[in-house]
């Protein structure tokens, strides 16, 4: 059993690429997304914040799949935070991710109606198997807030499924 665990750990270590490769591969697309969402002036700060959040969570990733969707999700949330800081809060709930939505794949349609934070938490938790610690790092919030967002999101999905 212990050998199996060690082997799994080793396989994971192999499949998560060195951050340098991940960064080289996705930085142009991330910057493009942030420029589109925030404009050229604010995109640079958001770019740095996106990759710092990604790097903070990177060591604790369970596997190296869906990294593109993962980093674009982080970028969307960084953009959302930046927009939130510059807009009255009443508009926020409707600030969806309607344009340039990243590839959420299986959970995409299902979570389409959720508010952005809940949607990100649900997708990262159930789509990518991230822990609440990792989700908190990715979203720039706390594990409790991430857990709360995911569970509120799931409840909301259940309600809409049963109605």
């Amino acid at each position, binding site marked *: 059993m212990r050998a199996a665990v060690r082997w799994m750990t080793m396989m994971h270590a192999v499949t998560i690429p*060195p951050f*340098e*490769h991940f960064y080289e591969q996705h930085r*142009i697309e991330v*910057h493009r997304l942030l420029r589109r969402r925030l404009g050229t002036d604010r995109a640079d700060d958001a770019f*740095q914040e996106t990759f*710092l959040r990604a790097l903070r969570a990177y*060591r604790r990733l369970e596997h190296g799949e869906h990294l593109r969707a993962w980093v674009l999700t982080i970028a969307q949330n960084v953009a959302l935070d930046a927009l939130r800081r510059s807009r009255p809060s009443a508009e926020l709930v409707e600030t969806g991710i309607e344009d340039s939505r990243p590839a959420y794949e299986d959970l995409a349609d299902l979570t389409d109606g959720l508010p952005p934070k809940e949607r990100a938490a649900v997708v990262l938790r159930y789509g990518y198997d991230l822990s609440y610690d990792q989700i908190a790092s990715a979203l720039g919030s706390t594990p409790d807030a991430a857990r709360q967002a995911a569970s509120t999101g799931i409840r909301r999905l259940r309600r809409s499924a049963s109605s």
Partner: protein
Amino acid sequence: MTVSSDLDRRFREAAVALDLVDMGFDVVDTPIGQLFVAASTRGLAAISFEADPDNQLERLARIAGPAVLRSPKSVDAARRELDEYFAGRRRVFDLALDLRALPQFTVSVLHELARVPFGETTTYGALAAAVGRPRAARAVGTVMNRNRIPIVLPCHRVIGSGGDLVGYAGGLDLKITLLELEGAR
């Protein structure tokens, strides 16, 4: 449109400043050509004569974790000491080393190797004897061959008992160059 080099540099500096990098690396210019140099917060972890990073990063990630990032700042101390060494102004390296994930025998041999003085040579057999394994000269040769931190851990100072140079990861010419630089030949 690409990411500006200024933005790129700022991200890399912030990542190191926030202590988020398991292993930083850069390519360092020296009189013997470009070297790939990598260091963690524990110390210098790798020097390679093959300067192209692409072939090295997976190996570093297995040692230190996946947060491997090009960051000139991480290797500043090593760069400075290598500069001084090649300029003839440094005879002893004063760098912490990251020898993680190496077997105990290898670590013992490398510690003995580190004590071979600038400008002198020793033999595989003498190193083997120094770690209490006098018959392990061949195993010492393997440790030299796989030395992750050449130059700083001076495997170029180790030669055959007959005085032949035997081998070197960077090529025998380079071994001769380093020994000449130290006045050992």
